C-alpha cells in the first residue's frame, strides 16, 4: 500500500482513499482530460500541464526523497534547449527532439547529482543552485547554438505526424491533448516507480537514512538514480515547453525557475502524487489574475512562499489528503 504521506502510513485510510490511491493515474488523467473544458484559456492550460510535469519531476526528489534541490532549472532548461536546438539547427523530427530533451535532462541531472550528493543535507540546496548557475552561464555563452541572451528562436512545429496520422499542432485544443498524452504517460511511469520496491526504498531513505543504509541499500546510488529520474521528467517538461512556446527564453535556465518548481510543489503539497499539478495550476492562474492589476507579481510569489512555509507546510493537496484520511 503506497501512501502519499508516509508519516501517516500507520493510520488506516478510508476505503474511498484506498480506491483513489489505487487508481490515482486514471483519476489524474481524467482530471487533465476534462481540464480544458473548465478553463477558458487553452494556452494557460498547456502551461499548467508543462509546469505541472516539471513540478512533478521536482517533487520526486524533494517530496519523496527529501532532497531540496535549487538547481532544477538546469534540468528543465537543458531539456528545452536541446529539444529546440535539435529542431532549429539540425532539423530533427519532433519525436526525436523530445527524446533528446528528455535525455539532456537526465545527463545534466547525472552530472549535477553526482557532484551534489557528495555533500549532505543542507549543502545540497547550495551546491545544486551553484551548479545550475554554471549550466546557465554555459548556455548563455554558447550564442551560436542557444541564441545567448535573446534565447533560442524558431522552434516551429506546425504538425505532429506519427504513423501516417497528422495532427494540427497550432490548434490549441489538439495541442493540449498532444502534450497531455505525454503528461499522462509520465504520470503512469511515476506511479509505477513509486509503487515499485525502488519507490519504497526512496521513501525509506527520506524517512531514515541510517536505517536504510543498515538494511543494505546504497543510499548514494538511490539518491543519484532518483535525481536522474527526476531529470528525465524535468527534461521532458522542458522539451514540451520548447515546442509549446516555439522559443526557449534564457530565463528558463535562471535559478528563479528552480524556485518556481519549489513554490508549485510547496503550494500543491510536497510528497503527494497530484499536488504538483494543483500547485502549478493555482500558481499560474494566480499569476494571470494578479498580473492584470499589478506588475509586482514577484511580491506575491515571495509572500506566498512565506505563508506556505509558516502556516501551510503541507500545501493544498496535502491538506486535502490529510482531511480525507482523518
Amino acid at each position: 500500500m503506497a501512501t502519499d504521506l508516509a508519516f501517516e502510513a500507520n493510520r488506516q485510510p478510508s476505503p474511498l482513499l484506498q480506491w483513489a490511491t489505487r487508481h490515482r493515474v486514471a483519476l489524474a488523467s481524467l482530471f487533465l482530460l476534462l481540464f480544458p473544458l473548465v478553463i477558458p484559456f487553452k494556452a494557460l492550460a498547456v502551461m499548467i500541464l508543462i509546469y505541472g510535469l516539471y513540478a512533478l519531476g521536482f517533487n520526486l526528489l524533494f517530496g519523496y526523497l527529501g532532497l531540496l534541490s535549487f538547481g532544477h532549472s538546469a534540468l528543465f532548461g537543458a531539456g528545452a534547449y536541446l529539444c529546440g536546438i535539435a529542431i532549429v539547427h539540425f532539423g530533427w523530427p519532433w519525436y526525436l527532439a523530445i527524446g533528446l530533451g528528455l535525455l539532456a535532462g537526465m545527463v545534466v541531472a547525472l552530472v549535477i547529482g553526482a557532484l551534489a550528493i557528495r555533500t549532505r543535507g543542507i549543502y545540497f540546496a547550495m551546491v545544486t543552485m551553484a551548479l545550475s548557475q554554471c549550466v546557465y552561464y554555459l548556455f548563455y555563452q554558447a550564442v551560436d547554438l542557444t541564441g545567448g541572451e535573446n534565447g533560442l528562436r524558431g522552434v516551429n512545429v506546425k504538425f505532429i505526424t506519427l504513423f501516417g496520422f497528422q495532427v494540427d499542432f497550432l490548434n490549441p485544443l489538439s495541442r493540449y491533448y498532444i502534450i497531455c498524452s505525454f503528461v499522462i504517460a509520465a504520470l503512469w511511469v511515476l506511479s509505477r516507480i513509486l509503487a515499485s520496491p525502488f519507490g519504497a526504498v526512496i521513501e525509506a531513505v527520506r524517512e531514515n537514512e541510517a536505517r536504510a543504509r543498515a538494511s543494505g541499500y546504497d543510499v548514494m546510488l538511490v539518491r543519484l538514480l532518483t535525481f536522474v529520474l527526476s531529470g528525465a521528467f524535468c527534461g521532458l517538461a522542458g522539451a514540451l515547453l520548447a515546442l509549446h512556446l516555439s522559443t526557449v527564453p534564457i530565463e528558463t535556465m535562471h535559478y528563479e525557475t528552480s524556485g518556481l518548481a519549489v513554490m508549485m510543489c510547496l503550494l500543491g503539497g510536497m510528497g503527494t502524487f497530484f499536488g504538483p499539478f494543483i500547485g502549478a495550476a493555482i500558481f499560474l492562474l494566480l499569476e494571470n489574475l494578479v498580473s492584470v492589476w499589478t506588475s509586482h507579481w514577484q511580491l506575491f510569489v515571495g509572500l506566498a512562499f512565506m505563508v506556505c512555509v509558516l502556516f501551510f507546510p503541507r500545501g493544498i493537496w496535502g491538506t486535502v489528503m490529510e482531511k480525507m484520511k482523518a
Partner: protein
Amino acid sequence: MAGLTLDLIGLQLFAGVALGAVYVLLAIGLSLIFGMLTVVNFAHGAFYMLGAYVGLWLMAHGGNFWLCLVLVPLVVGGIGLAVERVLIRPLYGRGIDYPLLLTFGLSYIIVELVRITFGKSGYPFDTPDVLQGAVDIGVGFFPLYRLFVIAATAVILFGLWLFLERTSFGLIIRAGARDPLIVRVLGVNVSKVWLIVFGMGTAIAAFAGLLAAPLQGVIPEMGGTILAEAFVVTVVGGMGSLLGAVLAGILVGVVVSMTSLFAPEMAKVAIFALMALVLLIRPQGFFGRAGLMS
C-alpha cells in the same frame, strides 16, 4: 615583455583579492549564520543588495560615504534582527529546509520592494572623492578604492576575530557552533545569541554590498548572482568555518580575476569548476568537518 606580463599578473592578483574581499564578507555572514542557527540564508544576497541601496538613499539625503559605512550595517542589521525574531524563529525544530525556503521567499519580497521604491533600472554609485585615483603598489598603479575595500575587509575580520576570541559572548557563539545542545543545557539563552548572530550576519552582508557598490553600480538583481558565488565560497571553504571562508573567498576572487585575464568568457564558469573540483577531492571543503552536515 616578460616583466610587463608579470606586472599585469601582479595587478590582476590584487584585483582578485579585492574582489575576493567582498566574497569573504558574504561567506563569513553565511557561515556564521549557518554555523550557529543551521539556517542557510537564501536572502543573504538580498541583504547585500539592500546594503547598497540603503547607502544610495543615505548619500542622496545628505549622508557621506563614511557615515554610510556605519549606518548601513546598523539599519540592515536591524532589519535582520526583525526577520529572525518574527519569521525564522517559529521555524526552528521543523527541519532544515523550512528556514531556507522562507528566506528564499523573503529575498523575492526584498528585491521587489526595492524595485518598487527605487525603480527597476540600476544606478551608478560614486566612489568617495578621497578614494579616487590610483596608487603605485610596486607592480603598477592600482585603484585606491580597491585597496580600501581590502583594508576595510581586513578591519572587519580583525574586529570579528577579537569579538569571537576575546569576549565571553564570542565564546558562547563558538561553543554554540560546536554543540548548541550543551550550550543550552549550561543555561545560556541560545535564542538571544541566535538573534544577534543573524543580525550580525546580515549587517556584514550589507556592509559588503555597500563596499561593492562603487565597483559595480547598484541594481536590484545584484544580490542574486553573487549569492550563488558566495555559496561556492562557503562550500569550498567548508561550511561553518570562518578561516575557510576567508581563504576560499580570496581564492575564488583570484581565480575569477585570473580567468578574466586569460579567458574572459570562462570567468563565470571557472568559479563553479573550482567548486566541482573541491567537491570531488574534499567534499566537506577546506576546513569543514565531515560530520557537521549530517
